[in-house]
């Protein structure tokens, strides 16, 4: 029978859902928020279940009703579960103003969108009724009841559109009070109407009756008879260049004219024509073109990183200046990936490298028994359209990369880096873009649900603000995993498939969600970006699949595994097919969410929570049995072959047959021009200071204190605790060094400061740990991407050393993952020039520090084109490189945190401290107010890799126990020395005196940024011994101060002015904590 169930908290209980929504309305539309006096949320379920009323009533009570706190409104089904008046009127009575002016917004999912709650509710009914429910449906939704004097439908519509719903996946209706008082919505006919309908088949798919004559006869023209219903033919043979390009654009294939020509010519090859004839194919099918488009997409093929590039440097080095390392950038580059990433790793042959670049993730040996793997992905385009869904699928997607790497690894931690526009942005928004607050709120929730629900701790991350991220937010999601080095007799990094192995798809079902994700992410965001590119995640289905696959791995039930991510089956099977030399699958055998999917949709859909496996025939029964016992769905699609072809069938009829060699190597190579003209003049003024001068304000003594407080409030520096604590960073019980260092935990006085990196202890039986850190600094890109890339590599490695990672011996595990998010460089020599410089800067730093790359990914189309206030605008993100570094901590009992531990600790600056104000947070901030007072030339901090190696070797050499005399170690990064010292003071609320050395420029010393520097504290008693050690090891150091209990930071020294200055630690804490906290 049909039923509508409304579940609401009784009025005497606070409603956090409603409070959260009101907060979001306040952020988005404060003027509407002022008109709302009261609001409550109501969960709604629409049921269509094959059971009788007598059966339904007790089940609904069991499943939906918490009688302590809730009411159920069910029309006349279960009146006893509601209040006195039996419905929503009881709730209205609780409104502070009576009679009130009530409105309700109701939202539900669009047809075909994953409804996790509805699915769980259905499962609950099956559990309670003790039987499978065929042809049953439960949909979930939510109502928001609002009361306010001047509320009207337009205001409600605004709330619905901007705050309550994402119209890509949800629909909403506004119900005025009159409607609400009636009980029409509980009537059977109405419920039937309200239940989201399954997708109507767009064309009827039947087993085709083939008419060979028409198929073979048709070779030209665009109105061809179809091969079968649901398969369109794409005649390319007679199309000219422009027509080919148009066709590609129209079909969202994102293939260039050259690529379309290569495809056209492939289908003209005589041997292909005769082979295709035998299979009943002639004109290319849409399935084939989609497979080519997915496989050749920038997202999957990384054509820009494979391109031949001609690089020209138009800057001339200053007179008498020695050529820097960037002088080594060749003018002819034979692929950036090969020359800067792969070659770097080849030149650093570490014994612990097990698999690099080939697999879904980089794999390294953690110890004799276990391997560690790491992957970082971006999910920018989906997060721009649906921040929650995009980020959620970003997390669970990269988790699957780990699950599908080698023989399959268990995810042990996540890392997350978000780059968004300023939360205070107040101008008009360009069309189709969301406010950064809304983006961040959705992204945060997505990562929270993706990580927390999956039981994977989020241990490290960053949050970066820049106005240009308005055009596209960047969402980096990384995952680390562990697996035994031997599994069922095979090495963990093995990927081997034999002809005859079955092709198994496991996990979720295929739907229309996420069609064209890979090709879409290879295009700029514009007004016409397709909503179908958005996928919805389902952490619980993925969790079940993960548990199942790890069990199957240990039992040796499959031979190879990979993830279904971008490009869906087309990519996963197409890639695995290379291992055996071919594949033949029938996509009509795939389980789907609803009927009516066309063959090409089945092939390229990016529906989530799916993995593809190669299962040997003899193990198939055992594999299927375990899957069914674990509640995991499987589809046996076909088999791997050695035919050299990727063959796709639908209902036993061949709909695609592509030569693997052509598919994987046939894409024409890009040729790009790259120019370097010096710093980016066009960057927004508050980020770029290419020719500014130092804020040599007359009075450092009088104003530096205020500057420090202002820096601590900068969104890029201020506390991220509000975000970090919403992520579970400790599940799995491995946590050693957390994102925050805390003092007074569990008490009202608890305060937390930032740590540099996370340490986890992945094995109960071993004290060895894994440290993970990141480096990101897009500000420097505007000055020189070469230096930017050097800096982020250095910063990521430094962060690892802070917490106690090993460094410097061949066995020392230290690996890098690169993630480029760039504005589209194709056809833009300047942007290509930035990319070239970043790649070579990264290579320079990695080689200097002996840290190989093990994995990486690039996202090259981070641009927006659209309208703002009717005017055409284009926004490109700043060139952004994220380096994720992982290292080994030999013994976690000697790892370190960034907080000073008590009074009387000597504070040292390690590293020679050649800081520069150029590209610093100070420069970004002061550009606005101190313009006119700049007088001296600005400097840019530059690396000295010999010095770096000496310092890092000392900190990370040996087995980790040697340097336990360091009480606190914190790297000097955004905001410079004084911000670093402050951050180490925060947790305990300590004070410190810092002496600005003689002969330095005080602004530069205190707030400049640079390379290789740490703030270190050592107990007074150990100071002499440690200083001697540094001197012996040529580690540059400078004692700059001491900690004390005076509760203030005092800055003295000749350079700081005759009296120096001081700021109370309490104020420093307030400043650091205040900004950025908005939800």
């Amino acid at each position, binding site marked *: 029978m049909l039923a509508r169930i409304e579940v609401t*908290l009784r009025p*005497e209980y*606070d409603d*956090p*859902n409603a*409070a*959260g929504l009101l907060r979001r309305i306040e952020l988005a539309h404060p003027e509407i928020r002022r008109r709302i006096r009261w609001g409550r949320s109501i969960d709604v379920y629409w049921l269509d279940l094959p059971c009788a009323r007598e059966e339904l009533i007790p089940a609904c009570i*069991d*499943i*939906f009703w*918490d*009688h*302590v*706190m809730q009411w159920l409104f069910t029309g006349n089904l279960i009146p006893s579960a509601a209040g006195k008046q039996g419905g929503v009127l009881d709730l209205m009575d609780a409104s502070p103003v009576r009679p009130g002016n009530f409105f309700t917004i109701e939202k539900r999912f669009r047809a075909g969108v994953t409804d*996790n*709650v509805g699915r*769980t509710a259905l*499962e*609950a009914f099956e*559990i*309670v009724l003790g039987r499978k429910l065929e042809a049953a449906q439960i949909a979930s939704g939510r109502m928001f009841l609002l009361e306010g004097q001047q509320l009207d439908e337009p205001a409600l519509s605004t709330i619905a559109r901007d705050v309550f719903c994402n119209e890509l996946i949800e629909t909403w209706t506004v119900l005025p009070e009159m409607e609400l008082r009636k009980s029409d919505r509980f009537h059977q006919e109405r419920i039937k109407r309200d239940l989201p309908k399954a997708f109507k088949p767009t064309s009827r798919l039947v087993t085709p009756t083939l008419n060979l004559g028409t198929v073979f006869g048709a070779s030209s023209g665009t109105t061809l008879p179809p091969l079968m219903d649901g398969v369109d033919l794409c005649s390319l043979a007679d199309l000219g260049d422009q027509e080919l390009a148009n066709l590609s654009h129209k079909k969202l294939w994102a293939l260039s004219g050259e690529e379309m020509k290569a495809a056209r010519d492939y289908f003209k090859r005589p041997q292909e024509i005769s082979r295709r004839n035998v299979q009943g194919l002639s004109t290319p099918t849409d399935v084939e073109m989609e497979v080519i488009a997915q496989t050749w997409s920038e997202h999957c093929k990384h054509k820009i990183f494979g391109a031949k590039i001609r690089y020209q440097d138009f800057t001339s080095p200053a007179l008498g200046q020695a050529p820097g390392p960037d002088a080594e950038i060749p003018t002819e580059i034979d692929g950036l990936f090969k020359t800067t990433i792969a070659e770097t790793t080849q030149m650093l042959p570490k014994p612990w490298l097990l698999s690099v670049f080939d697999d879904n993730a980089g794999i390294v040996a953690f110890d004799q028994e276990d391997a560690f793997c790491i992957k970082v992905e971006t999910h920018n385009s989906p997060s721009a359209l649906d921040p929650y869904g995009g980020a959620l699928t970003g997390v669970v997607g990269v988790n699957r990369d780990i699950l599908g790497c080698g023989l399959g690894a268990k995810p042990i931690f996540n890392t997350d880096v978000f780059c968004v526009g300023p939360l205070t942005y107040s101008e008009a928004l360009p069309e189709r873009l969301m406010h950064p607050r809304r983006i961040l709120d959705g992204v945060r929730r997505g990562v929270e649900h993706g990580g*927390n*629900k999956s*039981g994977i701790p989020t241990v490290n991350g960053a949050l970066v603000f820049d106005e240009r991220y308005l055009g596209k937010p960047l969402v980096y999601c990384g995952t680390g995993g562990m697996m035994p080095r031997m599994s069922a007799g095979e090495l963990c990094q093995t990927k081997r498939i034999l002809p005859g192995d079955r092709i198994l798809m496991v996990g979720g079902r295929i739907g229309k969600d996420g069609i064209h994700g890979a090709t879409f992410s290879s295009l700029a965001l514009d007004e016409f970006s397709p909503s179908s590119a958005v996928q919805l995640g389902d*952490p*619980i289905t993925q*969790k079940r699949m993960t*548990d199942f696959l790890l069990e199957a791995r240990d039992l040796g039930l499959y031979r190879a595994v990979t993830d279904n991510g971008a490009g869906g089956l087309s990519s996963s099977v197409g890639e695995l097919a290379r291992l055996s030399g071919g594949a033949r699958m029938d996509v009509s055998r795939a389980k789907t969410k609803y009927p009516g999917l066309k063959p090409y949709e089945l092939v390229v859909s990016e529906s989530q929570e799916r993995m593809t496996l190669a299962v040997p025939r003899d193990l198939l029964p055992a594999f299927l049995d375990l899957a069914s*016992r*674990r*509640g995991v769905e499987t589809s046996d699609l076909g088999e791997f072959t050695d035919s050299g072809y990727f063959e796709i069938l639908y209902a036993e009829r061949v709909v695609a047959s592509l030569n693997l060699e052509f598919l994987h190597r046939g894409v024409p190579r890009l040729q790009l021009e790259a120019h370097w003209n010096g710093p980016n003049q066009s960057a927004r003024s508050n980020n770029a200071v290419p020719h500014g001068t130092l804020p040599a304000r007359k009075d450092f003594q009088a104003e530096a204190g205020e500057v420090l407080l202002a820096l601590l409030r900068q969104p890029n520096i201020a506390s991220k605790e509000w975000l*970090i*604590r*919403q*992520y*579970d*960073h*400790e*599940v*799995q*019980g491995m*946590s*050693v*060094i957390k994102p*925050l*260092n*805390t*003092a007074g*935990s*569990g*008490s009202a006085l*608890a305060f937390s400061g930032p740590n540099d990196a996370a340490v986890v*202890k992945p094995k*109960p039986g071993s004290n060895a740990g894994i440290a993970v850190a990141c480096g990101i600094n897009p500000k420097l890109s505007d000055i020189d991407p070469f230096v930017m890339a050097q800096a982020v590599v250095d910063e990521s490695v430094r962060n690892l050393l802070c917490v106690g990672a090993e460094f410097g011996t061949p066995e020392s595990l230290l690996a890098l993952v690169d993630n480029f998010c760039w504005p589209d460089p194709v056809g833009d020599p300047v942007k290509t020039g930035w990319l070239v410089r970043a790649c070579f800067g990264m290579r320079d730093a990695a080689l200097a520090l002996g840290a190989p790359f093990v994995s990486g990914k690039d996202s090259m189309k981070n641009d927006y084109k659209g309208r703002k206030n009717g005017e055409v605008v284009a926004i490109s993100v700043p060139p952004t490189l994220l380096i994720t570094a992982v290292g080994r901590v030999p013994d976690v*009992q*000697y*790892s370190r945190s960034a*907080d000073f*531990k*008590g009074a009387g600790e000597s504070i040292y600056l390690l590293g020679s401290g050649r800081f520069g104000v150029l590209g610093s947070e100070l420069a970004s901030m002061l550009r606005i107010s101190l313009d006119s007072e700049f007088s001296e030339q600005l400097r840019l901090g530059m690396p000295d890799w010999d010095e770096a190696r000496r310092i890092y070797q000392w900190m990370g050499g040996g087995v980790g126990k040697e340097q336990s005399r360091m009480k606190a170690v914190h790297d000097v990064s955004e905001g410079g020395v004084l911000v670093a010292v402050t951050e180490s003071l925060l947790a305990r609320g300590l004070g410190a005196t810092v002496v600005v050395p003689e002969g330095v420029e005080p602004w530069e010393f205190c707030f400049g940024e640079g390379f290789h520097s740490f703030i270190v504290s050592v107990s007074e008693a150990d100071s002499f011994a440690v200083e001697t050690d540094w001197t012996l090891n040529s580690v540059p150091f400078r004692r700059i101060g001491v900690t004390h209990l005076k509760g203030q930071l005092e800055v003295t020294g000749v350079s700081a002015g005759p009296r120096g200055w001081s700021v109370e630690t309490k104020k420093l804490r307030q400043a650091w904590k205040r900004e950025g906290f908005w939800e």
Partner: protein
Amino acid sequence: MSTQQPRVLVLAGDGINCQTESAQAFAMSGFTAEIRHLNDLISEKVTLDDLCRRYAVLMLPGGFSFGDDLASGKVLALKIQHGLNWELSKFADRGGMVLGVCNGFQALIRMGTFGKDISITHNVQGKFVDTWVKVAPTGSRCVWTKGLGTLDLPIRHGEGRIIISKNRRVEVLTKFERLGMACLRYEGDPNGSEERLAGLCDPTGRIFGLMPHPEAFVRWTAHPEWTAQPARASSPGQGLAFFENAYQEAIHARQ
């Protein structure tokens, strides 16, 4: 089984996350821990008798079973009740012990283990929170908290606020007091839980559920402030005490 270590059954599957570290904590305390998938227990029709015969302890670990959909722990509770038909109070009467942590505790509450007049819902701040808290055991009823003083533990939940029925508040609190069921309280107020309740036990003191995660503090290096006291780095964590208490109880029960 008298010559063997006491055994603990750790539930897994359907979104339970903390089975591995929970089993580890029991193993460190002397138990033999078995992690079993809920579906296997259901398809093998493991009865309450089997449970009593084979295991000294049943553990419901933390996690997000069924994605916290409908209500946290709700569908897991239904699945244990309808799929396995175990009456946990009978298990306790026959000498068994039960531990529910976080989502496991939520499921115990939904099953009515601690009475029909309490519930658990979203934190008052409306957010998930990962932080460390101080908790104080009270009373002597609970076998898991016996002899313990105030200790530090992490909480990691979005729904940890215990609610007592408004109409039956006095009766419930009197009952809790009389039977020693309110056995663990927060020293602060991290989530708005009534009476600062962090954990509850049943009237036998053998079924214990709590929101904080004792299995996440079995080594000192898990504590957020351990680097300030590096000399303690090799010490066990305070959370281990719960598991050791259970071990003593299991050994004691056998003699």
